[in-house]
């Protein structure tokens, strides 16, 4: 099978890979590039564990073909902390006990990040809406919603 070249930016660094036609971005990130922070829970677009940010928008990497990501700017959870300092969302997930087994956490945090980037002071309903594509089977959604609202408050205090 012919290999297809693809180039994109992942968490700020340039990546160039040859992938088989039909390879999902999730598999390319995990198996070829070695960024295992996006998780595969269903491989059919229903659980949200594989969510990554592509050009500022939340995307399901299990339903995105790697070959369509040429020139894209991709962000995953493994690139969120800067210089070893946790992002406010990461801090908030720790502080509110919003992560039990942790398998949904990468997708949850990425979805929450896109929300806060667009809507720095979200309502509870905004948070629920933004996380509605992400399934968690252990923690329960309340601590997760609380984490996102806490991170939003921390952000606005920093800005003030």
């Amino acid at each position, binding site marked *: 099978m012919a290999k297809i070249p693809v180039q994109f930016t992942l968490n700020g660094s340039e990546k160039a890979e040859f992938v088989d036609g039909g390879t999902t971005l999730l598999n390319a990130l995990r198996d070829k590039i070695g960024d*295992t922070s996006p998780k595969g829970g269903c491989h059919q677009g229903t659980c949200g*564990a594989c969510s990554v940010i592509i050009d500022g928008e939340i995307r399901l990497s299990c339903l995105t073909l790697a070959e369509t990501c040429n020139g894209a700017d991709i962000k*995953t959870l*493994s690139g969120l902390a800067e210089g070893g300092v946790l992002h406010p969302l990461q801090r908030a997930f720790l502080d509110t*006990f919003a992560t039990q*087994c942790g398998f949904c956490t990468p997708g949850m945090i990425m979805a929450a990040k896109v929300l806060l980037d667009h809507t720095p002071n979200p309502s509870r309903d905004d948070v629920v809406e933004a996380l509605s594509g992400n399934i*968690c*089977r*252990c923690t329960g959604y309340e601590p997760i919603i609380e984490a996102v609202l806490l991170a939003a408050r921390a952000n606005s205090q920093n800005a003030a």
Partner: protein
Amino acid sequence: MELRKSYFADVRKDDLHEIGQPRPRSDSPGHVTGKTAYFADRNFPGMLHLKMVRSPHHHARIRSIDTSEAEKHPGVVKVLTAKDVPHNVYTILTLIQIGPEDETVLADGKVRWKGEAVVAVLAETERAAQEAAAKVKVDYEVLPAVFDMEEALKPGSPLVNEYHGHNYYSYDSGACRKVRFGDVEAGFAEADHVLEQSYQSSPIEHAPTETTGCVVAPEGNDRFTCYTNTQAMFFTLDNTSIILQMPGSKLHFVGGTVGGGFGGKVDVIVEPIAVLGAKLTGRPVSFIYSREEEMQISSPRAAEKVVIKDGVMKDGRIIARKVTGYTDAGAYSRHSPYGAQKGAGHYPGPYTIPNVWIDTYCVYTNRTPSSAMRGFGVTIGDFALEVQMDKLARLIGMDPLEFRFINAYRDGDMKAHRQPTEGAALIECMQEASRTANWPVAEKYMAMSSYVKGA
């Protein structure tokens, strides 16, 4: 969190340093940074993918299996059938002397549930494994199947599992696990009211976010490292050792963070066949359930049926309880004989009842084998018991919480299985619950104690 230090002040040490203190989970920093390593985060060069050919029938005899087309499929490295498995018939709890061995790793001669593993295909890519699995030809003679526990127990019902010889598990006490205490019929005769009700539940799927699976890497010295999301590391290691007839010292199992489990990952299903694949090919092997397999193939919580008959006095005392419990094991035992047995111990409830009679059956049907899940064996029982308690309270016109105070077991009470009650604290919990829920009960109940006899 508020600590009520007034309770049991004279018997409780006051040197607690952890309770009431927030403590971070040790693994959560890894979770929020994406660094936690789950089993599937291990990738090895040259890794093969294992896909299972599964039974499309609930119950069928296997006339023949033809793997020749699958073997020729590009990318296929090995195809495994029952004859490749050194000790193909096993049961998980054999390690604690619970038998007989009643489940096949790969079906041999017969399939007993829809989804049962028949042939394993190992290929260079997931896709090749999937395509080749579709080319395996199995010739089945479909047999009559049974899906209902009461049907399964009737004489003449299709025999699900020959290793048992009948459609129930044989306990040392016979066809069911029994508890006998006092004289239950005398209790019913004396009771002001008798209420018999039956309760039943459907199977429940755990649906963990991370599907079941493992990744096995040969170490090159006939030793194998298996990265797995099992919830029962040593059951898995020891059963793999028995199934593959290789010493445990050749098996290095690495567990760790499980991406959701709820009990569904205690069965020993993926590891033995994946290790066997790695042994026979000399290559790393990944066997991961698809989401569809996880929902359809992994063990659910058992369907249960509970029939409860209670004799109660006008003053609120339950004086007789007779319970018959049925646990639907599906086609194989796994943890179900244990679940049904737990039910037998549990059905008296946290109540002191002088006459108790309990039978619990572990029943085989042609359904997906059920197994452990969050308090299996007692959770559905508790639902049934507590609904029954509300019905009894209503029957005699009593407040349901006050009714429970009257029957609550207290320290020193003899339980139906002849274990004296110790450290009950049920009265105190109900007192707190009544305050918190704003559900007032009479002063005399608020003055009760689990600890002070006769108070």
